[in-house]
C-alpha cells in the first residue's frame, strides 16, 4: 500500500524534508511508520495524526492514508 507522511515545524527541519511517499505492507502501525522514516522509536513530545485526526501509536494505516508527525502544538 502507498501512504504519504508529512512533517511539521521543528520536526520538518530535523528531517530536512516536509514529506515522504512510502510503500509499506498493510497493517503497519504509526510507531512502525515513524521507525521506518526516522530509525527511532516514538519519543516523548512527538505527536502523530492519520487523515487529519490525532492518532495513537498503535493505530494502523491503510492504503492512501495521510500520516503526519509533529511536535507539541503552540498556537493561540
Amino acid at each position, binding site marked *: 500500500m502507498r501512504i504519504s507522511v508529512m512533517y511539521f515545524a521543528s520536526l520538518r527541519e530535523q528531517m530536512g524534508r516536509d514529506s515522504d511517499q512510502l510503500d509499506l505492507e498493510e497493517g503497519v502501525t504509526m510507531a512502525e511508520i515513524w521507525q521506518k522514516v526516522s530509525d527511532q522509536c516514538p519519543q516523548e*513530545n512527538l505527536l502523530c*495524526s492519520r487523515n487529519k485526526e490525532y492518532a495513537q501509536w498503535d493505530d494502523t494505516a491503510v492504503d492512501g492514508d495521510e500520516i*503526519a508527525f509533529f511536535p507539541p*502544538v503552540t*498556537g*493561540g
Partner: protein
Amino acid sequence: MKVEIRPEAYDPWVEIGAYQAALPAGSYGASAVFVGTMRDFNEGDDVESMLLEHYPGMTEQQLEELAQNSLKYHGLIDVMVLHRVGEVRPNDPIVVVAAWSAHRKAAFDACREMMENLKSVATFWKKEQLKEGVRWVEKNTAG
C-alpha cells in the same frame, strides 16, 4: 458561526464588531471575547517577529469542531474563532475567540474553554525570530 485562518494582519475589534452587527439585534445579552496578541518579549528574550505554521486542513477541521461543540454544549447564540498564520510582528493579534449568549455564564465559560481547547489541540506552531537567531516555541503557558 465563523471560523477562519487568516494569513494577513487584522484588527480584532473591527472583526468582532462587524460580525456582531450581523447577529439578530436584541437576541444576545452577553459577549465574551479573548484576543491573543504577539508580545515583543518571551521567556526573557526580545522577539523581533514570529512565524506561525499550521497543518492546512487539519487545523481548520479542529477549529470548526471546537467551535461547533461549544455552540451546542453551552447553548450559545453564536461563536467566532479567527487565527493568524504566516509572519507575525509584535503587537499583531494572533487569535480571536468570541462567544455570544443570552446570559453571561455561558459566554464566559465557552470563551475560555474554546481558548484552552485551541491551545491544547489545534495544530499551530510558533517559531520566534530573536536578535541572536531563531527558536521554536516548545510549549504553551499554562491557562
